[in-house]
């Protein structure tokens, strides 16, 4: 296991390095001059040249790359090109908790919806309830998340005034402010995910419920609920865990869009604004962080997989 972890971690780091390198060079191939845009109002060619020289943007790209890379190795992600040139690490560290809050709440909501829905529809296969869950799942997958977000704002914020329409409050301001700001976006992000999980649980539960050991358990005269929850459900979770990697992708992608709807400055927004403004260091830093999260989350999922399913070993 240790060997496996070590190998995967090294692989993950190599992937991140490759991603960072690719992004670095692709970004510089993009048309658009951030400094000229920033100094548009100023309109002074000398000022543009001076600033470029100061930021090192006048050097050959490979020199910039080496410099940047050496700094990254020291944990320095550089500074934003714009404005007061805030440290990228600071921008990312302020955005990260927001995105993580959103993603984890969305995850919890999705699980809270999906697990009972999937279980019920598997146990009561082809019942009206099952059909409802199926319809919900397909609708959840078919709705553009930003559209759902806007609808939620219109209903719960603009009309009912139950919840704030936009913004984010850190957990340090208390649970309710945090929760009330995040619940709507979390629903928007979590719904498609809930749909996928509910479908997965349903199909894997059906498979497990038809298997011999459940028949044996039933034959032993165990209570049905006990059979389902203690014997069947944990086994049905195994295929669900395999989609966790997708879950992370889905939550991240959802967060990018939904953060915009709810004016939450999370990693997604940092990334998009960085790209739109050609704020190279910010994009590089944000991508590095996003890929780190994604790569290691996938690794964690694989490890979790062995914990849940004792049949799987990575050592051989």
């Amino acid at each position: 296991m240790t060997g496996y972890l070590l190998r995967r971690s090294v692989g993950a780091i190599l992937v991140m390095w490759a991603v960072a390198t690719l992004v670095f060079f692709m970004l510089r191939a993009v048309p658009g001059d951030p400094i000229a845009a920033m100094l548009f109002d100023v309109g002074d060619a000398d000022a543009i040249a001076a600033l470029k020289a100061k930021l090192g943007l006048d050097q050959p790209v490979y020199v910039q790359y080496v410099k940047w890379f050496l700094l990254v190795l020291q944990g320095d992600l550089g500074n934003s090109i714009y404005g007061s040139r805030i440290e990228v690490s600071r921008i990312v560290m302020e955005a990260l908790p927001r995105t993580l809050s959103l993603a984890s709440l969305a995850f919890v909501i999705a699980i809270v919806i999906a697990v009972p829905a999937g279980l019920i529809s598997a146990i009561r296969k082809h019942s009206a309830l099952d059909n409802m869950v199926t319809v919900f799942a397909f609708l959840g997958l078919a709705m553009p998340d930003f559209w759902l977000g806007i609808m939620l704002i219109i209903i719960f914020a603009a009309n009912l005034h139950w919840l704030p329409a936009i913004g984010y409050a850190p957990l340090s301001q208390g649970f309710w402010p945090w929760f009330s700001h995040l619940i709507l976006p979390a629903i928007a992000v979590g719904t498609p995910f809930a749909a996928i999980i509910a479908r997965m649980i349903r199909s894997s539960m059906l498979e497990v419920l038809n298997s011999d050991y459940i028949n044996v358990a039933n034959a032993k005269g165990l209570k049905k609920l006990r059979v389902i929850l203690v014997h069947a459900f944990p086994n049905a979770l195994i295929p669900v865990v395999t989609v966790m990697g997708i879950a992370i992708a889905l939550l991240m992608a959802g967060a990018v869009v939904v953060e915009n709807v709810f004016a939450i400055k999370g990693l997604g927004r940092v990334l998009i604004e960085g790209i739109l403004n050609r704020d190279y260091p910010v994009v590089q830093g944000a991508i590095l962080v996003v890929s780190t999260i994604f790569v290691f989350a996938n690794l964690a999922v694989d490890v979790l997989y062995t914990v849940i399913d004792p049949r799987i070993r990575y050592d051989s």
Partner: protein
Amino acid sequence: MTALTEIMPRSDAASDCLMEVRDLALHFPVQGGTLFKHTVGQVKAVDGVSFSIRKGEVLGLVGESGCGKTTIARAILKLVRPTSGQILFDGMDLWQQDRAQQFAYRRRVQAVFQDPFSSLNPRMKVGSTVGEPFRIHMPSMKSAEINGEVRRLLDICGLPARMAERYPHEMSGGQRQRVGIARALALNAEMIVCDEAVSALDVSIQAQVINLLMDLKDEFNLTYLFIGHDLSVVKHLCDRVAVMYLGNVVEMADSETLFDEPLHPYTIALLSAVPVPDPVSEASRPHVILTGEIPSPVNPPNGCVFHPRCPRMSDACTRMRPLLLEELPGHHAACIHIERLAAQFTRPGQHSIPKIPDIPTSN
């Protein structure tokens, strides 16, 4: 083991030799490692095998599964590259061919595969499968001509022309194997490698297919390398038989000689396992039961590879690798105890197993 080739001058000299396998070895690396992959061992699937096939002959290659016979077939078909050794076809080394020669070789040597379910592309109609050789080798040929050829080939193999429109899954196993044969015949191949060609078929169908193969051999003057584990089929079909064990040929002789007067203890054990149709003699004849597992080819035993299971094992067997020597005219065997054995031989009757007093037997 280079010495081996020197003691096989006969096949080399024979003018009717179509294919010669010289000291063929195929080793597959086994990889391992925590951080970086590296080779930790080798599977010695074939480890120094030599034999030759004469024009118009049927050479049988028998042995238990995993002994390397299919790997040899794959090497002959140029599907894998040997680790060392040579395969000469018509005197030319298969891995010294230029592109044109290689292309020509593909026409001259064909194969019929074991599993009729797997050997036909399920997404191709029979007509396309049988016509494919023409499309590959004669790109100028028109579709109508190809269709004609396909009909002819199907007919030769005893299939109605309408089968050309079928998909493999719409046919029976025997029909599919006939399709496989038709495909092999398409380009007038000189030699056909039959890799367990009938093993997967029902017995009655087997008979039909074998008969077809024999008819075709006569009609088209074909040479077969027939690989199988069913000794009765091999005996029926082959002119000569080579017995393989763990990547080595342990015995090779004319079919009759081999089945009647086997020399190698492994062959003897193998033959004793073949059921005899007569229940009385079946019950009374001695059975040589091999004990122990076939050793892993990753770590083959030293000395004679058969020694851990050999009823005749001596100290020397664990140290010396026996050579495949011509013990009797045309009869090769690789066992250091043979000379002693041969002296004791009497000529037993057909289908009987030689009595070998000093071989411990059990029922």
